[in-house]
């Protein structure tokens, strides 16, 4: 900013005045930047670009913590259909060696380069009551949420992370990836992972079993879920279903579908009737978080207890970071102008000083 100031004043000022103006110019620009901050409420400011809407055929998963029985069939199915290796934590290694050096029991506790989908448990006090925050326990399923405005896609320098224009599935292409791990750093939900124990490690994350969807089959996790806790469908339909569930009252009987909510992908399946035993939180996770996500979750226990980031902005972080970049580099006009000014001055000043 001080440079453009300089180029404007280049002919009329003395060197000292020049420097003075340059300092004033920087101060003015910095003050202007501050004013932008003052004037703007935290949710929207002049620098932010508009948020991105969900793609027309956005698909995702709805996870209902109250239906989940923690059987982890989804974890096993995910490994099978995606050909992922077993993941054995340091605490399990002692007893967990099968024939040879292959572990016999897959025991992931967190998403990793070997685990694209995991069930984690919350527990408090005696842990006696299911879906209770006090003296209770609850399950949470972790996998990629397939953001409407994904940070990982915004940061990737080489287009290895992309969002499908139709389905909105966030894909990763290891053959393009340079392994900078900016996606790992930037994901607000801690989803993409890298394999640090492999000389040729890859970034791994859930891609909503796009290879299964291509065969009109369900994603592994939704396919095997016995209670419909993990439900596949169009994101619109899933949001409507989530709203229906969070409005249910304790003591009501309600119908819960399995597989695909529309009954198309993977063929029609029977749902089940169930008594609503605990009150749902009104918060639908993923409805508004950071511009919204295609995968949603409902629960009877607050989501911060389930180790998910809450109190996050309603616009994705790329709206601000890309907004700043697009403002500074719009049409490359500012850099080109600054370069012209610099080149003029450098040309003039190196000529004046031929003795150097």
């Amino acid at each position, binding site marked *: 900013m001080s*440079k453009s100031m300089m180029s404007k004043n280049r002919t009329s000022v003395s060197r000292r005045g*020049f*420097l003075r103006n340059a300092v004033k110019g920087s101060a003015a620009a*910095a003050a202007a*930047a*501050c004013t*932008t*901050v*003052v004037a703007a409420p*935290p949710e929207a400011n002049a620098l932010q670009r508009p948020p991105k809407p969900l793609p027309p055929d956005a698909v995702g998963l709805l996870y209902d913590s109250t239906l989940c029985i923690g059987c982890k069939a989804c974890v096993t199915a995910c490994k099978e259909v995606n050909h992922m290796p077993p993941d054995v934590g340091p605490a399990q290694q002692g007893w967990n060696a099968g024939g040879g050096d292959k572990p016999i029991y897959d025991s992931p506790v*967190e*998403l*990793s*380069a070997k685990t694209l989908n995991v069930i984690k448990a919350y527990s408090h006090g005696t842990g006696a009551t299911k879906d209770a925050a006090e003296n209770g326990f609850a399950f949470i399923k972790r996998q990629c949420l397939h953001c409407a405005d994904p940070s990982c*896609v*915004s940061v*990737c*320098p*080489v*287009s290895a992370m992309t969002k499908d224009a139709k389905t909105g599935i966030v894909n990763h292409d*290891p053959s*393009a990836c*340079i*392994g*900078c*791990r*900016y996606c790992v*750093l930037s994901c*607000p*939900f*801690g989803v993409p*992972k*890298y*394999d*640090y*124990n492999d*000389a040729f*490690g890859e*970034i791994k994350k859930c891609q909503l079993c796009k290879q299964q969807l291509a065969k009109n089959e369900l994603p592994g996790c939704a396919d095997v879920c016995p209670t419909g806790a993990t439900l596949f469908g169009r994101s619109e339909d899933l949001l409507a279903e989530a709203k229906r569930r969070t409005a249910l009252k304790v003591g009501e009987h309600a119908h819960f579908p399995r597989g695909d909510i529309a009954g198309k992908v993977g063929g029609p399946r029977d749902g089940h009737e169930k008594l609503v035993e605990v009150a749902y939180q009104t918060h639908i996770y993923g409805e508004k978080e950071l511009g919204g996500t295609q995968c949603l979750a409902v629960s009877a226990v607050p989501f911060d207890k389930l*180790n998910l*980031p809450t109190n*996050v902005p309603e616009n994705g*972080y*790329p709206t*601000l*970071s890309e907004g*700043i*970049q697009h403002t*500074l*580099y719009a049409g490359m006009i500012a*850099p080109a102008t600054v*370069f012209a000014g*610099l*080149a003029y*001055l*450098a*040309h003039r000043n*190196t000529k*004046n000083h031929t*003795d150097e």
Partner: protein
Amino acid sequence: MSSHAHEHQPLGGRVLTLPFLICAVLVAIAGVILFQRYTQGLGAASNLNDGYPWGIWVAIDVVIGSAFGCAGYVIALLCYILNRGEYHPLVRPAVLASLFGYGLAGLAVLVDLGRYWNFYHMMLPWYAQPNSVMLEVGLCVATYTLVLVVEFAPAFLERFGIEGLRAKLNKVLWVFIALGVLLPTMHQSSLGTMMVIVGHKLSPLWQSQMLPVFFLLTAILMGFAIVVWESVMASLNFRRPMETPVLSKLSGLMLAVASLFVVLRFVDLIVRGQIGQIFGGPQSGWFIAEMVLMIAGLALLIPKANRNRSRALFLAASLLLVAGILYRLNVYLIGFTPAVGPWHYFPSVKEIMVTVGVFALEIALYLLFVKKLPVMHAVHPEHG
């Protein structure tokens, strides 16, 4: 034109001195560790993990190392853009320091990249993802490193007597000088923008849309500080007269930039309503340390008499340099908390030794170059 050849002189002297050999040993140790890193993966040599995918190899080697490399940027800005000829003796050593600072930051990137064999995808338009701040930083840094090579080329050409090419290069050098000021302005500010997208994971003490402004200011400040630091070190170690008069002028600018940084930091915190975080918020101790160092450094420069004392100058430059280092470390590592935890990170010994090796290589090459090439301004006979 023939008088040029004597304006800068190689310092001469033995190459295989003790400091040079110590650096060589450190570089060799880093080399052994890197063999493990390339054969067994990043985990074999570092404590990097999925909560902290970026460790000291990014925060120190690249983000702080490239700020060390801003000496050439600020001196070219003063000397050629603001036309302050008196800074001319500082140009070549500064450009050389920048060349190594940036060259080795580039090398460190190749150490850190998990799929380094694909690194050239950054340069291929069909892979480019124009919204990526990192793409802009990467392309800018790569181009700037080439610009630095061209800016330093006159020293080579002079040494090997290639006067024809040197004269031709001098005619177009202004293009490279202009690029050499534009590119660091772009990528140093973008290094700040890069952390905007981590959002709530960076403590509100540092997370701000002013990050690009603060990174540009610390780049300029650290550029000035490293010039002063390097000049005093060179005077002491090579028994050359101090360049105090020109350094005292620089210190006035250092004072201005550091003051602007401190004022804007507080204004930004107040405007964002996060000023309370200073008192007892998480990581507030690190913010206070950063500010105390910065204010101590600039306070030393307020009395004009101090700006002519090489000791005070050296101390002030050191404090400001450490303050700038700490600010950048806070933004990239200390102020960062992973989204879904808990995760822990402290660099492993091997990881630290690689960083030490990178900086040792920088020092060893610098010593070699100033002794063998005309980098330093010739000392007048009455002082020599």
